[in-house]
C-alpha cells in the first residue's frame, strides 16, 4: 500500500468528502439507471401485483422507470447506507485528522458534528428508501424518480449539517427542500397529495424567504457570510459599532429562528405538517419527519451556537433561549393534545413529530446553560430517527393496496393478524413514548438530564407531563392492535408482504433496541460530536 498516495491531499480530500460524494455520484447514477430502465407494460404490473392473470386491456407503456421501484430502492438504499458507512469510516479516522478538507471550509465544514449528522440522515434516508421499495410498488405509485430525489434530498440534508457559510447553507437548504416538495406530491393523481405538496411548497418558500432576509441582514450588519466570521464580528461589536447594527442583528435572529423552526415543524410554524405528512406517501412522511427535521436542528444548533453565541444574545433575560423555550412548550402541549384527538394514526404520528420537535428544543434551549445539552440533542435525534421510521414502517406494513392502514380502527386486531409486525409497531411506539429499555427512553433521559443540569426545572416538568400525555396516544395504538377486534363488516387493513419493509423494520428495531440496551457508544459519539467540543 502506497502510504504517500493515501496521505496525499487529493485522496484525503476525497476521503473527507466521501459521504457527500457517495450520495452525489450515486444519485446521478441512479438517475441514469432510472432513465434507461427497461419499460414495463402496465397490465403486467397489475398482474404481478394481484397475482392473477392479466385482466385489463392491452397493456401500454407507462413510464420508462415504472415497475422497477424495488430495484431502484435497493440501489438507493445501497447508496445511502454507503454514505452512512463512509461517515462511520470518516468518524473512526477522525475528521480533524483529514486536514485536506479545510479547502472546502467554510462552505462545508467536515467536523465531527457534521459527520455525526451525515450518519444520522444517511441512516434515515436508507431506511426510508427500503420502506419505499415496499410501499411504492404495493400502492402502484410507479414513479422511479422517487429514489434519485430521495438521495439528493439526503445529500442536501448532509450538506446542510455541514454548511458553515450562509451561501452554502441556503443552497443546501433548498437542495433538500425542493426534493422533498416533489416527494410529497409524488402521487400526482391524488388531490390530497397535490394539495399537501402545494401547501408545503408555498409555506416553505415563505419560510425560506424569511431566512434569506435574515441572512441578508446578517451580511449587511457584519459584512461576512461565513458563520464563524459573523459570530466573531457580532462578539466584537460594542459601543458605537453596535449602535446601528444591534437592531439588524436581532431582527436577523428572529427571522432565522422562524425559518428554521418551520423546517423543524415547531409550533406555531407547524401548521403545514399534518397536511403534508398525511398527503405524502408514507415513506416520504417518514423521511420528512426524520431527515429534514434532523438537518434543520443541526443547522439551527450551528447558527445559534456559532453565530449567536455571544452572551448578550444567549442571555436568559433577553436572548434566544426564552424564545426557543416558548416554542418548545407550545410545540409539546399543542401537538400532544391534538394528537390525542386524532382518528388517523398517520396524522397522529405527524403531530407526534411536532411534539418531538418540542422535546428537541428543550435540549437546544439547554445548550445555553449546560455542557451536555448539545450531545443530548444529537443523541435524541438519533433515537428519534430510528423510532419514527420504524413506526411509519410498521404502519406501511399494516396496509395494502387500496386498503392502507390509516385509522386506529384499521389496526383493530392487528396483533392477531400479524404478530411480528404488531410487536415491532408496539416496540417503536414504546420507544417514542420513552419507555425503557428502548432508545427513546434514553433520548428523553439525556435531554431532561441536560435541562436539569441547566437548572431548567420547569421545562423538565413540562416535558415530563407531556411524555405522559404522549404515552396515552401511543399506547392507544397498542390497545387497538391487541385488545380490539375489527367491527364486523368494517374494512380492516390486511398486512402486506415485503422483504424491503421487513428489512427496514429489522434495521430500525436493532437500532432502537441497541440504543436502549447499550446507549453508551452512541452517547459517547454524540459527546464527541458537539460543536466547539
Amino acid at each position, binding site marked *: 500500500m502506497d502510504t504517500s498516495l493515501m496521505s496525499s491531499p487529493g485522496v484525503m480530500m476525497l476521503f473527507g468528502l466521501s459521504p457527500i460524494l457517495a450520495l452525489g455520484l450515486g444519485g*446521478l447514477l441512479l*438517475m*441514469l439507471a*432510472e*432513465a*434507461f430502465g427497461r419499460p414495463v407494460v402496465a397490465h403486467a404490473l397489475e398482474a404481478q401485483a394481484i397475482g392473477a392473470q392479466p385482466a385489463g386491456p392491452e397493456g401500454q407503456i407507462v413510464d*420508462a422507470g415504472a415497475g422497477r421501484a424495488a430495484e431502484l430502492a435497493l440501489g438507493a438504499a445501497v447508496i445511502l447506507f454507503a454514505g452512512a458507512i463512509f461517515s462511520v469510516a470518516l468518524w473512526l479516522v477522525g475528521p480533524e485528522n483529514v486536514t485536506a478538507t479545510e479547502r472546502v471550509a467554510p462552505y462545508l465544514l467536515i467536523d465531527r458534528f457534521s459527520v455525526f449528522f451525515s450518519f444520522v440522515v444517511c441512516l434515515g434516508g436508507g431506511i426510508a428508501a427500503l420502506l419505499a421499495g415496499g410501499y411504492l410498488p404495493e400502492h402502484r405509485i410507479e414513479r422511479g424518480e422517487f429514489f434519485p430525489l430521495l438521495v439528493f434530498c439526503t445529500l442536501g440534508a448532509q450538506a446542510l449539517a455541514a454548511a458553515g457559510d450562509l451561501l452554502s447553507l441556503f443552497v443546501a437548504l433548498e437542495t433538500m427542500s425542493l426534493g422533498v416538495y416533489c416527494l410529497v406530491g409524488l402521487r400526482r393523481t391524488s388531490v390530497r397529495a397535490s394539495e399537501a405538496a402545494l401547501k408545503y411548497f408555498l409555506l416553505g418558500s415563505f419560510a425560506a424567504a424569511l431566512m434569506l432576509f435574515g441572512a441578508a441582514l446578517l451580511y449587511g450588519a457584519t459584512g461576512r457570510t461565513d458563520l464563524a466570521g459573523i459570530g466573531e464580528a457580532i462578539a466584537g461589536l460594542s459601543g458605537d459599532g453596535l449602535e446601528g447594527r444591534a437592531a439588524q442583528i436581532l431582527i436577523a435572529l428572529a427571522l432565522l429562528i422562524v425559518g428554521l423552526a418551520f423546517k423543524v415543524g415547531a409550533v406555531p410554524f407547524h401548521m403545514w405538517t399534518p397536511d403534508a405528512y398525511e398527503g405524502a406517501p408514507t415513506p416520504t412522511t417518514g423521511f420528512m419527519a426524520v431527515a429534514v427535521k434532523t438537518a434543520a436542528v443541526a443547522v439551527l444548533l450551528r447558527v445559534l451556537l456559532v453565530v449567536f453565541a455571544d452572551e448578550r444574545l444567549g442571555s436568559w433575560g433577553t436572548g434566544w433561549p426564552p424564545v426557543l423555550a416558548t416554542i418548545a412548550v407550545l410545540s409539546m402541549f399543542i401537538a400532544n393534545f391534538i394528537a390525542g384527538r386524532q382518528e388517523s394514526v398517520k396524522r397522529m404520528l405527524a403531530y407526534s413529530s411536532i411534539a418531538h420537535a418540542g422535546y428537541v428544543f428543550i435540549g437546544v434551549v439547554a445548550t445555553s446553560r449546560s455542557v451536555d445539552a448539545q450531545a443530548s440533542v444529537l443523541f435524541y435525534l438519533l433515537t428519534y430517527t430510528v423510532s419514527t421510521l420504524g413506526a411509519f414502517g410498521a404502519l406501511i406494513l399494516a396496509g395494502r393496496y387500496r386498503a392502507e392502514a390509516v385509522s386506529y380502527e384499521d389496526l383493530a386486531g392487528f396483533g392477531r393478524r400479524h404478530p411480528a409486525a404488531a410487536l415491532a409497531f408496539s416496540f417503536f411506539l414504546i420507544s417514542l413514548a420513552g419507555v425503557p429499555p428502548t432508545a427513546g427512553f434514553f433520548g428523553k433521559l439525556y435531554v431532561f438530564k441536560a435541562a436539569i443540569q441547566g437548572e431548567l426545572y420547569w421545562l423538565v416538568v413540562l416535558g415530563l407531563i407531556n411524555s405522559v400525555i404522549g404515552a396515552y396516544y401511543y399506547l392507544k395504538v397498542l390497545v387497538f392492535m391487541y385488545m380490539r377486534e375489527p367491527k364486523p363488516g368494517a374494512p380492516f387493513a390486511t398486512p402486506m408482504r415485503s422483504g424491503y419493509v421487513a428489512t427496514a423494520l429489522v434495521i430500525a428495531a436493532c437500532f432502537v433496541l441497541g440504543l436502549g440496551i447499550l446507549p453508551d457508544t452512541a452517547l459517547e459519539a454524540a459527546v464527541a460530536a458537539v460543536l466547539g467540543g
Partner: protein
Amino acid sequence: MLETYLPLFLLFVVALVIGGAMFTLGHFVGRKPLGPEQAMPYECGNDTRGGRDVKLTVKFYLTAILFVVFDIEVVFIYPWATLFKSLGWVGFATMSAFIVALGVALVYVWRKGALEWES
C-alpha cells in the same frame, strides 16, 4: 455609507424619468382619435380569438422551465470563464464535474421524453 448607493439611486431616477417620459410624451404627442384597428390588441388588425383566460398546455411550461434551468447554469460558467487561468486545473475539474452533472440531467430529461412535443 449612503454614497455607495448613489449610482443605484441615479439608475432608479433615470429609469423612472425615461419610463414616465415615454408615457407622457405618447399622451401629448400621439394622435388622439384612435382608429378601430389601433384599439385592437397588438394593433395588428387581426381579430383575436378565444378568451383571455385560455389555458396553455403544460408542455409550454415544461419547456420554459427546462430552458430556465439550463440557462441559469450557463450563468455559472460565465464568471468561471473570465477567471479560467487563475483557477487552473482545479477550477477546470470543478467545472467539468458541474457540466457532467448538467449533462446527466440533460440525458435524463431527454430520456424521460420531456423534450418531445408529441407523445
